[in-house]
């Protein structure tokens, strides 16, 4: 698992992703759009270059998943004939406000990583881009988390501790570098100064903040539920211990009594078989929730910081 310093993206890819996600958003069919990234690994510079991408349909039903698979194979074959890199290096997904950290995402990242060590997942946030900041982040499972997930699909607390996996280092964020060829730069010059209608000066609107807070509360609720489950589990473990002790104690007393009365003692039974261990609670969901909550907090903090500045600006205008 060699660490790569960064990943290059061609600007064309960014435009395609943006266009695809924005279109789907406008059509309001489904805000969750995904697609495949293609590219190659540059061994000399040890970077991953993403040079092309194409969208896939929503894979909700089995039928659409089958269609997607065929689509991918067809594209691979066709792109070869026009000299486009056809190796899949990851996937991209559009999600609102960092709600991407769930089981499906983890599974997809894991699948791609299994095939290729350097696969990445790109998350595009259309809302944030509308506010004026291009929001494109690349993620990858950290090597510790990858090894753990490979071994076991659900974790217990001991496994997490042993492997030093916390919610912070579950996903590793990779810096994204945009690279353009010279001809593309010429095209950019030709496109000239773009009329920028989006303003960075939108005041921190309550709807964006409200939505973020709602998501934060949702995440906290989930963690709370997980905590309750963990508590219950610990109580049941404790209960099992006490029950076991009590049983052994009773048995001993019985045996002593029997020996005193001159009867044969009862056979020793294996205590462990009588009292089964309660099933340990999986910690994966709480990890993911914690991750999600932290990213929400980060986002809100950033938003608030710039919001305060903008408020002062507005103040100076109006007074």
């Amino acid at each position, binding site marked *: 698992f060699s660490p790569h310093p960064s990943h290059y993206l061609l*600007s*064309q890819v*960014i*435009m*395609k992703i*943006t*266009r695809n*996600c*924005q*279109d789907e958003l406008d059509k309001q069919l489904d805000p969750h759009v995904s697609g495949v990234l293609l590219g190659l690994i540059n061994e000399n510079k040890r970077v991953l270059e993403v040079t092309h991408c*194409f969208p896939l349909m929503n894979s909700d039903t089995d039928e659409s998943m089958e269609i997607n698979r065929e689509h991918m194979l067809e*594209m691979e074959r*066709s792109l070869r*004939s*026009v*000299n*486009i890199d056809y190796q899949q290096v990851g996937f991209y997904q559009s999600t609102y406000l960092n709600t991407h950290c769930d089981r499906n995402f983890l599974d997809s990242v894991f699948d791609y990583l299994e095939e290729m060590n350097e696969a990445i997942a790109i998350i595009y946030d*259309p809302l944030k881009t*509308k506010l*004026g*900041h*291009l929001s494109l982040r690349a993620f990858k499972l950290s090597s510790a988390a990858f090894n753990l997930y490979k071994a076991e699909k659900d974790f217990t*607390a001991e496994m*997490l*501790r042993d492997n030093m996996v*916390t919610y*912070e280092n579950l996903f590793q964020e990779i810096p994204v*570098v945009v690279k*353009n*060829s010279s*001809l*593309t*730069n*010429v*095209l950019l*010059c030709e*496109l000239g100064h*773009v009329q*920028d*209608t*989006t303003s*960075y000066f939108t*005041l*921190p609107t*309550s709807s964006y903040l409200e939505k973020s807070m709602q998501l*934060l509360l949702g995440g906290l609720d989930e963690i709370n539920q997980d905590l309750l489950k963990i508590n219950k589990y610990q109580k049941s473990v404790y209960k099992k211990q006490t029950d076991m002790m009590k049983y052994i104690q009773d048995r001993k007393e019985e045996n002593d009594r029997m020996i005193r009365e001159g009867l044969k003692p009862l056979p020793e039974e294996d205590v462990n078989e009588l009292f089964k261990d309660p099933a340990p609670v999986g910690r994966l969901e709480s990890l993911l929730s*914690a991750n999600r*909550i932290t990213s929400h907090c980060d986002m*809100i*903090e*950033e*938003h*608030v910081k*710039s919001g305060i500045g*903008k*408020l002062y600006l507005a*103040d100076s*205008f*109006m*007074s």
Partner: protein
Amino acid sequence: EYGEFQTFQHYFKQINLSKMAAEGRTVAPPVRKVIIHPVVLFNIVDSFERRNDNCKRVIGTLMGRYDKGVIYVTESFAVPHQETDEEVSMGMDYAMRISEMQKKVNTNMYTVGWYSSGIQINDYSSLIHSFYKVQFPSPVHLTLDTALKEQKMKINTHITLPIGVKNGTEGCIFTPVPHEIKGSEADQVCLKFFQGLKGTRKTPNFNDPEQIVHSCDDMMAQINVILGYVKQVSAGEIPMDKEIGRQLMEVVQSIPNLESDTITNMLNSHMQDLLAVEYLTYLTRQQLAIGARINQIL
């Protein structure tokens, strides 16, 4: 590879195109303007850079939709083709197949034309154009000058109009059509971001406060320009322009005219909301971190 290529003679024999044209079956809808999405241009440049060594130009299909005299071009893909002095051939099956696939993912897109790199339009262009005419009655031909003649990358869009004598020698002529490069808001954000990177290959800067400072500087510069203009007009150096004056009035009046008390109250309450939210998020984050550390220790 050659299995995919079909020469035009073979193809035309199959569908008897000339017969169709003679019956006037294809009715070309009027095309007054072409609106191109920036992604298409990036695609063309990219496919040009990936061409085989012996090709002088690349061609490909343009996809999009047509609406009331305007063609919207939103997607494109390269099509393998070969061109020699004697003949030209292209992968027509390939083009049809890929356009079908694109239609599956994006249901309201269809073939609306084709592109080629290099500004030259020759006989081969009209042959290729006739192929595309079958799929869309009035295809648009986009050329992107990758050879950078005149130190610029010129983009031209053409459609063909029939000329000639009916029942005699007929042909078609490529006439230019006005075009516009337009994208949605998000695309503009992207483009602006790329403009910032032009020439340098540095890491993108998604940092909020720095961008605000940058926009502030921009705005200050713009205000200075306007101020200079207003000063010059009031000193009588430049004649008045009613249109500009009206727009300036609109800008100045768009600031809401409220009492200073209400303004301060609003701002203060807003500020307090933001601070409360920031405090809560900070608290949440510390709580999570503490929980995780305890988990490590116990």
